[in-house]
């Protein structure tokens, strides 16, 4: 074999490796409902039983949500504080449609998704006119508006009580505890789809454009490219994926509550992505899954005897899962800003002699150069 084909053989292998690994993971996950695996301490039941399958489905929903957020923050460098709006649009969208229109499930889902996409396009078009912290504030404002709308229109949305799913037109295939594994498989399929969207966004010219626009919008415009267009597409895609996860969520939970549009949820997503590693697709997935499992386990742990027997000073904070998560988040941001994926990636690259700034630090450098509210750019 010649040198060249040796080299290209190697690189093809290297490029194929993640694909193969990913495919293997999906295959493994798909077969879980058929296997009897127990992971005590993490999974509540064996893997073929509905308890675990429901938890894993929820974890995958949040993984998909984190993935969609990573498209914004990791790929395009947009720090949005209103991402929950699109998730809620999907969840409430489907819930409202099924409640008030007699359409079968699949058209209902389509309507909800179109609604979510429209909302994302409109809010996105308005928001991308600013960047940095102002962008964060506008997105926060829109999400707040959505939250207020949901809470106030109790007749349609169920208000603070939440909306329960009208299952008249939902095929039996998905209903009932027995069929949790069908929901599981649906969720898995959707997650794979969202992952592919994220992959496409990253790898495509769109992704390159988004990344380049982080550095210098003006330069791009001078070159005749339109970074705003790329940003909007990315924003809309992220919003659509979030709506998709919202649709699956309302199906899985048979209902939804106003937390689905709350700032709290966006914060939660942010925590997932940062924990997992900003800018890494697999980091977002890890973050989503980890958060869901941690949240569940910590809640159980919080109620356990071990904690109850601790002195108050320790027991009170440790019995609050969000406290532990908040502290963990702070520690990660301060000492491991790359998150899990970033840290692993940095270690891996150090072994191969290459260095790379973590995505968060890159964001800092960019925001240092970018014009700010009420400030001129400082050299």
């Amino acid at each position, binding site marked *: 074999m010649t040198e060249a084909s040796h080299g290209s053989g190697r690189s093809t292998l290297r490029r194929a490796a993640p694909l193969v690994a990913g495919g293997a993971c999906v295959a493994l996950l798909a077969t879980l409902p058929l296997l009897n695996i127990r992971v005590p301490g993490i999974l509540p039941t064996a893997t073929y039983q509905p308890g675990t399958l429901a938890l894993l489905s929820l974890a995958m929903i949040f993984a998909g949500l984190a993935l969609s957020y990573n498209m914004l923050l990791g790929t395009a460098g947009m720090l949005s504080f209103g991402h929950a709006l699109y998730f809620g649009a999907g969840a409430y969208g489907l819930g409202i449609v099924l409640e008030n229109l007699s359409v079968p499930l699949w058209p209902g889902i389509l309507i909800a998704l179109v609604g979510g996409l429209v909302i994302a396009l409109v809010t996105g078009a308005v928001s991308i006119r600013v960047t940095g912290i102002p962008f964060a504030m506008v997105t926060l404002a829109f999400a707040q508006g959505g939250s207020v709308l949901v809470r106030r229109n109790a007749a349609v949305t169920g208000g603070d009580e939440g909306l329960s799913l009208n299952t008249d037109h939902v095929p039996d295939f998905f209903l009932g505890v027995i069929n949790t594994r069908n929901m599981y498989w649906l969720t898995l399929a959707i997650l794979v789809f969202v992952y592919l969207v994220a992959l496409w966004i990253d790898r495509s010219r769109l992704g390159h454009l988004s990344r380049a626009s982080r*550095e210098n919008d003006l330069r791009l415009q001078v070159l005749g490219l339109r970074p705003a267009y790329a940003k909007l597409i990315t924003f809309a895609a992220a919003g659509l994926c979030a709506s998709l996860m919202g649709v699956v969520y309302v199906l899985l939970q048979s209902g939804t509550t106003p937390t689905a549009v709350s700032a709290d949820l966006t914060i939660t997503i942010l925590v997932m992505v940062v924990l997992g590693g900003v800018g890494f697709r697999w980091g977002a997935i890890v973050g989503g899954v980890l958060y869901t499992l941690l949240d569940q386990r910590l809640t159980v742990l919080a109620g356990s005897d071990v904690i109850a027997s601790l002195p108050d000073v320790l027991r009170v904070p440790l019995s609050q899962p969000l406290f532990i998560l908040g502290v963990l988040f702070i520690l990660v941001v301060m000492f491991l800003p790359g998150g899990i994926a970033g840290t692993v990636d940095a270690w891996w690259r150090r072994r191969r002699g290459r260095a790379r700034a973590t995505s968060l630090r890159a964001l800092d*450098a*960019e925001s*240092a*150069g970018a014009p700010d509210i009420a400030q001129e750019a400082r*050299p």
Partner: protein
Amino acid sequence: MSDGTTDGSILTVQNLSASINGQQVVEDVSLSVPATGITAVLGRNGVGKTSTLRAILGLISRSGEIRLAGERIDGLRTHRIVQSGVGYVPEDREVFARLTVAENLALAERQREPARELVNELFPDLVQRRNQMAGTLSGGQQQMLSVARALINDNRILLVDEPTKGLAPKIVADVTIALRRAAEKVPILLVEQNLEVVRQLAGDAIVISGGRVVHTGRAVEFLDDEALIKRLLGVYAEAPAGNGSEESA
């Protein structure tokens, strides 16, 4: 006060490299500034003159050795470097527009007994405008204020960046006089594109091109060498700035 200088330089810079947002702007610059007089830093637009000064102060990320009177200062934070006796007159003056003249000066004062007499003597106009908002001052007055800020303390060196930029000839003359007076007290590293001013003020000259030092020597000798000027500084150097064409090419 003891100088601590080994070879008559107040500031030595070795292998200074600096970057802004990942872009290299200063590449391996080494220079030394004598403990008296004015040393000019020359070069075309964008070669890294301003960045060199900012790098010395630590305002941009940089590497290399910087010694003030023999002691290393490159490991210190900007405010500590300045506190060691490095005064700074930035390009574009950067006075605080929403503070008064008096407040701008008060902010700069570091010592128990600031050099108020010198400042009052050199800049009587500023004394009159003590309570005026710095943002409403003319360009020339702002420049005077910027220089005054650096002179209010007993610094060991002043880093002065294009003090005559955009000013009318009369004001350029005033600034030149002020700098010459200042140089009696403290050595100055002066970035300047106005060659006439350089001729009047500078002892030594350092020429920078492409982020590197390409020539050092006596200023007057350099300025007399037309071929050298054209080669290192380019076409704009033809017109001895001082007859109205302030804007550099």
